[in-house]
């Protein structure tokens, strides 16, 4: 009975563990592939080449372009979503009918599949009948090229990402704002502290764990964004929106170069693992904090 008691939790987690293992196998396969010369079109060339794939991608200008595209995308989406999300959360912080209703409605874009969100915007910015183009014509912008021009495709993608994921940051920060203790604000009120001082010295510091967790979460997703980009521009025009996963996808299915694609994915995984490591620590802190308060 004693032994079975000790084993019991393992029995309960066993099925989940098996799924775990089922995922670790392809993961290690990928790492292995990244050390192979492996092109589906040339199976006879298959062979172990150590780090040649890594050397080849790092000496390839298009890989550095991919890194630049992914980092630009991540940087701008997270910054804009944070500023907008925080702004909206502050605007909706007070509980009343309109704010509560908006709090519910604004979550809707987040619940739309990112790939479908891209398609929605594709219909809105269509050069023939797009309603956004029509609206822009009133402010004098007549031929904005959106996804079909290398200079504006990034802007379009970031706009769609912001549309989908700002609600994510907004909803977390809103919950954080509403959970803040009242006392420091009341004390500041009594002392006649100016509003901006209250914001920068009380609200922001107390909200910081929420902000950090939300941002890390978004960074992790943004740097791997595939759905939005693939559904809008498939990396184009040219290579102007060739983010990590889109590039690896094309490398696999267009050029059938499995080894190179795997090497790219391992690089992305290393970045994500690093971010994930920081994220989990922050997230855990926040979890303990919110559970301690309640």
């Amino acid at each position, binding site marked *: 009975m004693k032994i079975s008691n000790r084993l019991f939790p393992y029995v309960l987690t066993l099925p989940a563990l098996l799924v775990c293992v089922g995922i670790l196998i392809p993961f290690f396969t*990928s790492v292995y592939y990244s050390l192979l010369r492996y092109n589906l079109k040339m199976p006879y060339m298959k062979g172990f080449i150590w780090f040649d794939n890594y050397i080849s991608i790092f000496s390839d200008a298009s890989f550095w372009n991919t890194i630049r595209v992914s980092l630009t995308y991540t940087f701008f989406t997270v910054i804009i979503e944070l500023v907008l999300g925080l702004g909206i959360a502050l605007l909706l912080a007070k509980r009343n009918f309109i704010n509560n209703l908006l709090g519910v409605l604004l979550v809707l874009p987040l*619940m739309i599949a990112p790939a479908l969100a891209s398609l929605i915007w594709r219909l809105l910015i269509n050069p023939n009948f797009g309603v956004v183009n029509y609206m822009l014509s009133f402010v004098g912008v007549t031929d904005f090229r959106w996804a079909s021009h290398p200079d504006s495709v990034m802007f379009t993608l970031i706009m769609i990402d912001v549309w989908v994921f700002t609600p994510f940051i907004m909803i977390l920060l809103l919950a954080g704002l509403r959970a803040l203790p009242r006392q420091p604000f009341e004390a500041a009120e009594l002392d006649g502290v100016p509003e901006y001082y209250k914001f920068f010295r009380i609200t922001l510091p107390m909200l910081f764990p929420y902000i950090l967790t939300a941002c890390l979460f978004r960074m992790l997703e943004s740097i791997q964004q595939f759905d939005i980009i693939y559904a809008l521009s498939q990396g184009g025009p040219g290579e102007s929106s060739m983010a990590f996963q889109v590039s690896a996808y094309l490398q696999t299915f267009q050029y059938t170069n499995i080894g190179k694609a795997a090497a790219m994915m391992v690089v992305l995984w290393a970045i994500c693992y690093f971010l994930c490591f920081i994220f989990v620590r922050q997230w855990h802190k926040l979890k303990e904090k919110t559970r301690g308060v309640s």
Partner: protein
Amino acid sequence: MKPYLWSLFKFLAYIAIIVFFLFPILWIFSMSFQTNDTILQKVPSIFFTPTFKNYIGLWEGEISIEGFATMYVFFKQNLINSLILSVFSVLVTLILGVPAAYAFARYKFKGGEDIAFTLLSFRFAPALLIIIPLNLYFTKIGLYDSYFALVWVYQLITLPLLLWIVRGYFEDISVDIENAYRLDGHSWLKSFFYISIPLARPGIAASALLCFIYAWNNFVFALILGSSSIQPVTVGALAFITASAIPYGLIACGIVVSVLPTLILALFIQKYLVQGLSLGAVKG
């Protein structure tokens, strides 16, 4: 800043937020009730006589366009696929995830936290890293293009989600209730099914629905691991928009039908959404 200026600024901010975030949804919705005649007008039409032609066409699989022949569309199958994949993914996740979540919440056991965090890290692993080898494996063992394989891969997103949210709900239940019930001579199994699960039920239900939404919204797994016969609406809609000559109203209609289920579910679980989206870290 003067108070009235501040109010004006706030009012404009509200308008801007509503327009940017909600107008696209409304516009697509209105497009789905139009034919190409009204959509393609130079000045976008707000007033038009709504037609259900698109919805009927989508359901029946064929639509006749004036001046053209009849067109066949296969979107209904995508909808059915989405439903099958999401429902079975959630069911499997529930069976695998709820007992595991309970174990992580109740027992301190060696390696427990490590396993839990490994599962969490899957949520953030690049999807293609795992799918590319899986694609080759599945092709080799004949699992490519099967619901079974896709449901299994979907666990990658749904299982960590459910595990970590439900774990939080189990942690909130006092151990004493379970112990008291078990002192009466009831087995662990009975206390699990009659005490723990019913007490955590709202949380489990909400996270199951959130898992459903995430499964429904997934795009990349089915894009790579399935052919068009088992692909869900997310992939189907993309094929739809890139195919030529499909009326724009019909495309909009397909998008509306694809996003409507998740939007409605989101309204049902909005009380639990914060806790779900933060994987159980923040309470709404």
